[in-house]
């Protein structure tokens, strides 16, 4: 699908927003009803640093270099053309407002702004930015981290050196705490949309709201927030894309966050031949035209800062997710998990048995991704 107009693009990361909490965000929910909504967008890595580098490169973490917390400076900047870089080359003024210089690749921005999470007023700051850009053809990336700010104070720091049990026994309390972040988030979404309408930009802008990863509320022992495991509460996220003059559509096929970059390029009518041949993401446009009607298989990789087997230097937890099945390989303890996500959506009942042909096939797929991305594990030797 190629649009004729020169639309602006706003990409907004709602950091850590769980998909199952959208119900509590009325403005975001309304926007979904008038947008193209990808309800099963799987993040290829469930923590911001790796997730956003993958989106901005269209490549899995181990392909783009940022494949561990400690590899935050290892983005292959000399080899990869980033999304803003390509848009900039095609006449866009590119701007971002981010929590830290290391959270996305630094290439391709005319203007990079960094906020102080402790003092920032996101609504004021981001609506001001939109006002400032109103007369340009622009790409704007906004990072909304209000839930992250609370999570740092109320979970990460609070439980850092204490007995974890209390956290995992308090799921109801954790849920309530998490839900208390949502009204502010929804007001923020509303303010952004109203600003675009006030400036007559709403119908001239492709607006994307998405989550970079979900957030644990204590479902699985060992993960207090995200980045440790690859269970659905952190990897199964969403993207809402409001495209002017395109009717709303819910797309329930499984997609990957690395597909966003080529999709944006495609939507604004740029030639897809400009994309890097090594790019692993593929445009999602065929889902809009219904030329594609299959779930895309996803590979996910992570390595936690904390948890039962922390691995900040190297990813050590991997999975392959098909439409309804998931195979997980934990490289440090060298354990396997297999879940049927239809019967067991919360991934409680590990059915791994390598004598089952279906599991064997998925194991082969996982090895394929490990090899394709040159990820060395204990699995193969």
């Amino acid at each position, binding site marked *: 699908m190629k649009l004729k107009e020169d639309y602006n693009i706003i990409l907004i990361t709602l950091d850590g927003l769980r998909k199952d909490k959208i119900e509590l965000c009325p403005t975001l929910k309304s926007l979904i009803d008038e947008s193209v909504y990808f309800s099963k967008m799987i993040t290829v890595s469930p923590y911001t640093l790796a997730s956003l580098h993958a989106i901005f490169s269209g490549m899995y973490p181990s392909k783009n270099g940022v494949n561990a917390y400690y590899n935050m400076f290892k983005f292959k900047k000399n080899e990869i053309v980033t999304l803003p870089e390509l848009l900039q080359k095609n006449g866009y003024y590119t701007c971002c407002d981010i929590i830290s210089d290391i959270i996305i690749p630094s290439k391709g921005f005319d203007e990079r702004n960094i906020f102080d999470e402790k003092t920032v007023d996101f609504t004021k700051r981001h609506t001001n930015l939109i006002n400032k850009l109103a007369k340009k053809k622009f790409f704007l990336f906004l990072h909304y981290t209000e839930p992250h700010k609370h999570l740092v104070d109320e979970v990460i720091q609070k439980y850092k050196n204490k007995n974890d049990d209390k956290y995992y026994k308090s799921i109801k309390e954790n849920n309530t705490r998490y839900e208390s972040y949502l009204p502010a988030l929804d007001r923020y979404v509303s303010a952004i949309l109203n600003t675009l309408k006030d400036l007559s930009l709403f119908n001239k802008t492709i607006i994307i709201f998405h989550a970079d990863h979900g957030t644990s509320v204590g479902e699985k022992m060992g993960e207090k927030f995200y980045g440790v495991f690859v269970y659905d509460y952190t990897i199964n996220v969403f993207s809402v894309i409001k495209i002017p003059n395109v009717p709303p559509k819910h797309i329930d096929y499984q997609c990957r966050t690395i597909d966003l970059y080529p999709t944006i390029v495609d939507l604004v009518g740029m030639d897809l031949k400009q994309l890097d041949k090594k790019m692993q993401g593929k445009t999602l446009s065929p889902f809009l035209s219904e030329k594609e009607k299959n779930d895309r298989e996803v590979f996910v990789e992570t390595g936690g800062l904390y948890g039962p087997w922390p691995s900040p*230097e190297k990813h050590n937890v991997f999975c392959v997710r098909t439409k309804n099945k998931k195979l997980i390989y934990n490289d440090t303890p060298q354990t396997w998990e297999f879940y049927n996500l239809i019967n067991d959506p919360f991934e409680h009942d590990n059915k791994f048995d390598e004598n089952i042909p279906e599991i064997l096939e998925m194991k082969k797929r996982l090895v394929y991704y490990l*090899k394709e991305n040159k990820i060395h594990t204990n699995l193969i030797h």
Partner: protein
Amino acid sequence: MINYVDDQRKSITISANLFDEIKNRIKNPINGFSSIEEYVDYVLEEVLFEKEDSSVSDEEKQKIQDELKKLGYI
């Protein structure tokens, strides 16, 4: 001794024991290797390049720690 197969590939010899061990390992289809050469390439890449990639200077380590602290993770 090195034998030059073409511009992209060159041949060397390895011990018969290693050869047999690799041959045995790649029999397992789960490993996804179609040849001994592919296996050797894979393992050598790990030895040669992964360690190189993962080397972090003390200065860089400090920067990483500072960033993680700023983000509230440590």
